[in-house]
């Protein structure tokens, strides 16, 4: 079972994602901020991270750069309420992005693609 780390400072999003993704067969763990995120990833070894871009104390795009620096191939999906973030070149480092919605069809599709991605060793 693939393990997904949801990083979002909005509790209702964490709850929504946890419930729906568990129902879809994933193991879900959550974090409410970017605080010690790299250590958390090191410890929990998730197969994929869903990262909120705008959190009160953290910039998701900066966190994405930090993740790429240490976990080069860890799939990261950016989740955001707006798509203006794409003007920032840092967003290129994400595997995929989704606009937040109560319908998680698109998110689940991107999760499946990110987990299926295969490059030969």
């Amino acid at each position: 079972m693939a393990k997904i780390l949801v990083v979002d400072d909005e509790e209702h999003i964490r709850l929504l994602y946890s419930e729906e993704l568990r129902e879809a067969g994933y193991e879900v763990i959550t974090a409410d901020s970017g605080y010690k995120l790299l250590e958390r990833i090191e410890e929990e070894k998730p197969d994929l991270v869903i990262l909120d871009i705008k959190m009160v104390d953290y910039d998701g795009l900066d966190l994405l750069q930090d993740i790429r620096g240490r976990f080069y191939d860890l799939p990261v999906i950016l989740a955001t309420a707006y798509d203006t973030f794409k003007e920032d070149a840092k967003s290129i480092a994400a595997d995929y992005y989704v606009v937040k919605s109560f319908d998680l069809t698109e998110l689940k599709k991107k999760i499946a693609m990110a987990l299926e991605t295969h490059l030969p060793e």
Partner: protein
Amino acid sequence: MIHLEENPQNVTEAELVVAFPTFDEAASIGRAVEIVGQGLQEAFPDRQAVIINCDNHSLDGTRDAFLQAATPVPRIYLSTEPSQRGKGANLRMLFQKVLDLKAEVVVVLEADISNLSPSWVRLFAEPIQKGAAYVTPFYMRHKYENTLTSCLVYPMSRCLYGRRVRQLDAGDCAFRGDLAATFLDAPAWGDAVEATGIDVWMGTVALVSRVPVWQTFIGMPKEHRMKDPFAQLSVRFRQAVTTLFDLMGAYEDFWRRVKWSKPTALFNLDGQEVESPPIVEVNTSRLHQRFHEGFQEFEGLWREVFDPMVFNKLDEIRSMSFEQFTFPTHTWATLLFDAAAAYRRMGEDGEARSALVDSLLPLYLGKVVSYVKRTERMSIQQAEEHVEGMCAVFEESKPYLLEKWPH
């Protein structure tokens, strides 16, 4: 093969190499060497550096302009035989020299970049010091600059080799010194690679070698002495597509196993001021006309090469007026996949292969018309998202390639 070498400072070892492949660049090379010399002194004052000019035996004074440029950085001039032409031939000499010098970091820059600045040396070299093995630039480009990359090279290389490298064929790059040996041994070296196909070839060899490939964010456009984007297009198109197709044959075992794609590390994203690229105009009605002319010349060949369903789609596209014209990316991808499979089946028949590749040019121009019409009201950023969408269609269509590829 190095035909001629001049090494006035008798350099036998170097940690850092900056190389300029040239042919008749006397007007540009001196200035480029001085800028790079300044960049080396500012960013790497303690590193043993050398600037190398790999030249196609230019007769316009390139050699003298290179050796006489005002910089304290030592230089080496290499030349191919007088009859040999092409950037690939120049870089093959460089690979050999890099191994001789035991260089750790190699930066390759085109000599005619009019806005080259000393900072570019660091932007290309530092990612190698930080762990990359191959670095491609990420220039700020207008949405219609290098449509060959946006509509063909990027979607194809990404769906085949699984890494999102936006400007694989930008013309400039950096690589770790030991990768020179990999380049010297790599397959699919041919006439196209010896010319401008070298950029696609080096990038692909690096991707397949599974070494860390990074992009370095330049934050500004790359400006040449003014070039018409569609001048020399048929030659550049032939060399890029031939190289892509030859590499597909050589690396079949690799790309067959690739599913979807992964992002690539980006260097230099902090505090970067971004410069807007100059506007590129495209004459879509002329390109549309050339798309239609392609049917007169190549319809018979296309009927042989393309799956009947795919050809019917093409026929539908042909029937559209200019105002309604659209060339769906799925059709474009399957046409290219059919063509790649046919190219493979043609084996060593070079004439048939060349005819096939040349026949794809009008189709590419049709795709460009569609891309321009679709993106004309879009910002550069929105057009980039459209290109990403095209790449996603190529990736989704890849099972068609696997089905059509000859066993």
